[in-house]
């Protein structure tokens, strides 16, 4: 009888975390910034059809970096749960907090029980009627969930992006200012110009009547830059 190799739990978790982090760092990053009328998300994304930023419910948006099929599966599950809950109860009963916790539970389960952890970092954002009610949840590959304020960075190259973003951030930016700040932060220390074709921008506008999520079209971005 062969004896299985002993791997200490610490080592196993460390290996999985390294694996997930490496996978995430291969992709491009994404930032979310609170602005005057809501929350804007800016990502570098060469694809026009495979989105990183999308709508979940009336006041809730989703963003993900890492492996596309994995965060897309999480997004779809989120849309289904949100629509199910809103249909069973009422639209106002669908909240980001519960959704973020469900994501954290699922990611945590997969991280500890499955062979391969998810190589994703996701964000669940919800706009309130006032900026003090805005909520951003940042969820990691192992189910760690963080409640963040002002802005949030997903993906690798965090330090460079953080340095530029924290220097330029202030409360109550306009939408245009926030998009420009987000896009330039994503460039990190690189000196190259911002390429609109590589940019994906979505935002939650708190003043919308029901569905707050909007996507910036290419001509709108051209106007900004």
């Amino acid at each position, binding site marked *: 009888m062969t004896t299985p190799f002993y791997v200490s739990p610490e080592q196993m978790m460390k290996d999985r975390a390294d694996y997930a982090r490496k996978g995430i760092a291969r992709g491009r990053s994404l930032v979310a910034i609170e602005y005057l009328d809501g929350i804007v998300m800016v990502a570098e994304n060469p694809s026009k059809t495979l989105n990183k930023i999308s709508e979940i419910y009336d006041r809730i948006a989703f963003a993900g970096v890492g492996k596309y099929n994995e965060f897309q599966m999480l997004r779809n*599950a989120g849309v289904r749960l949100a629509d199910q809950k809103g249909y069973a109860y009422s639209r106002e009963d669908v909240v980001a907090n519960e959704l973020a916790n*469900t994501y954290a539970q699922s990611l945590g389960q997969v991280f500890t029980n499955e062979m391969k952890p998810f190589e994703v970092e996701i964000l669940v954002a919800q706009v309130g009627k006032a900026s003090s009610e805005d909520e951003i949840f940042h969820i990691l590959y192992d189910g760690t969930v963080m409640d963040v304020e002002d802005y949030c960075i997903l993906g690798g190259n965090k330090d460079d992006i953080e340095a530029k973003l924290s220097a330029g951030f202030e409360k109550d930016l306009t939408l245009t200012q926030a998009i420009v700040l987000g896009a330039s932060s994503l460039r990190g220390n690189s000196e190259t110009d911002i390429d609109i074709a590589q940019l994906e921008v979505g935002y939650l506008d708190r003043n919308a009547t029901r569905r707050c999520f909007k996507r910036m079209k290419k001509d709108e971005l051209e106007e900004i830059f």
Partner: protein
Amino acid sequence: MDFSKITQLSDPGTSFIEYLRVAQPDLLPDVNNVDFTTAFDARTLPHATTVVALTYKDGVIMAGDRRATAGLSIAHRKMDKVLPADSHSGIAIAGTAGIAMELVRLFQVQLEHYEKMAGEELSFEGKANQLSFMIRNNLPMAMQGLLVVPLFAGYDLTRKIGRVFSYDATGGRYEETDYTATGSGSVHAKNWIKAAYDRQAQADEAIDVAIRSLFAAADEDAGTGGPDLVRKIFPSVATINAEGFQYLSDDEIEQRANVLLAGPEQGGAQ
């Protein structure tokens, strides 16, 4: 909430109804367990009556009276029978109110769910067919007297025209070129529209035709509510054009109704 039911079972795709069938079937209407052996009088339940839809130059007008009846009783005086299906289409209901309202809610979520999951809206044709399928599913209930016969109308963003669909209890789907009506007073409403209809009418004229047709229906049909000047209850009206679905404000409808009622035809009452 948990994801396990979705990941373990077959993927329901972009359909919310298919998803509910897996995740929470008790939220769907259970038409397969209808008891046909017990006598049941559907007239004890509230019913919604007359609704109309007509195209005009830039889109469609949908309108409905506000009365719900249960047999000979008035069940509700201020029911809204014209409802948005999504940003550019509306659904107007006639038939058993409870079942119709559930159908509308499910239809609304189904359209939005599809849009979010697929990344683009269903085609106008696709929406009309989806509704057809949902009505056909209700057929066992319809045979027990719990009938739903809605209208579906809206602005087709691809063809850039207003389109109107009527349905029968089996899910039969009929596209009308100009106008249609359903519910107990529909014959009278339709006749009024037929006499006054103009395909190239401006919204202003088409709205008045719609309101008058409902007054005419209320004049002849006990199930249709007429203008209630005491309680200030008037028909509900929505316009749907390139800008989207928009209700007329209560004040505007009241104003129009008052002008029509003071005119030589008394708003259609003969």
